[in-house]
């Protein structure tokens, strides 16, 4: 049984973006619990030279959108908010989830080159940003665990 490009890309991006939404909600809860501005926690990072939480979430969004553009003959015309506050990031995530949903309804043409792109570039880059956002949250003491990152085991892939 072969895996189609859609099977490789769409459930992974959908699930990951939902996880990113959950991480943003956790960050908001942490800001309230600590009585610090959201902006402070959005800029939290593992070291001075490392990307911030906000940059990792935006990185995941960029990988999702640019990845689908690379895989599909499908214009990236779902509008995207550029505001750098928490509301802006949440809006970008919602817009990107909508974009992935639109892509799911289009025709993916499977080629060896596209499989190599997904496996070699898109998935590692996407998981790098998602896992790094998780790492930033854990490093500031947010009460999350790996099950937050993994979500429903295989749930979105049940039809694959």
């Amino acid at each position: 049984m072969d895996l189609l490009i859609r099977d490789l890309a769409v459930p992974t991006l959908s699930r990951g973006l939902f996880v990113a939404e959950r991480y943003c909600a956790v960050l908001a809860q942490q800001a309230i619990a600590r009585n610090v501005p959201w902006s402070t926690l959005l800029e939290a990072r593992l070291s001075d030279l490392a990307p911030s939480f906000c940059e990792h979430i935006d990185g995941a969004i960029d990988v999702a959108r640019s990845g689908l553009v690379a895989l599909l003959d499908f214009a990236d015309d779902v509008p995207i908010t550029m505001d750098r506050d928490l509301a802006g990031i949440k809006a970008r995530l919602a817009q990107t989830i909508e974009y992935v949903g639109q892509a799911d309804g289009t025709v993916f043409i499977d080629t060896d080159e596209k499989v190599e792109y997904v496996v070699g570039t898109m998935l590692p880059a996407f998981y790098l940003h998602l896992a790094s956002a998780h790492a930033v949250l854990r490093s500031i003491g947010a009460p999350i665990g790996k099950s937050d990152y993994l979500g429903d085991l295989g749930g979105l892939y049940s039809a694959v």
Partner: protein
Amino acid sequence: MTGSIESVALPTMLRGLTLLDGYLVSAQEFCERRRISESSLLDAKLAPDMFTLVRQVQAAADNAMNGMARLAGVDAPAFADTESDFDALRARVANTFEFIESLPREQLAMAGERLIDQRYRGVRKTMPGTAYLLGFLIPNFYFHIFMVYGILLRDGVSLPPPPSSQAMDAVYARFEAIQTGGS
């Protein structure tokens, strides 16, 4: 070969293990350059209740080895988890490469339909190999690799840039060698 489970699972594991080995080389060089003990990095963790760097590397290698063994329907060798320096961790990664490259191709070809019984923190789920690979194995494998990345980045280690196309050429050369039965 487009989209076969082998063409996704094998390059993913080779890709991740190559990244991981590069991180270990950078970490070892960092310790030598700074003249600090390797244990200062090996025992580091991102949060008190998270795995140390050593355990993250072992978990990534275990994921690759056990996950691929389950997909192929074969047993994986057990390791004692006794690594205490970067050379030993790199040897663990090298052993993992070797095991993955030795898996019987005809067994892997049937991995998509093979039912995998996955247990994780009290949840048990039986799923086809494809769902296991995409929904659990790949994200979990990368999780541990990028926790290593995070620990090293936090502790000031300069790490190789994200995967380049040149690096992928080496991964696919290795994958093609597996497919053709080469070394």
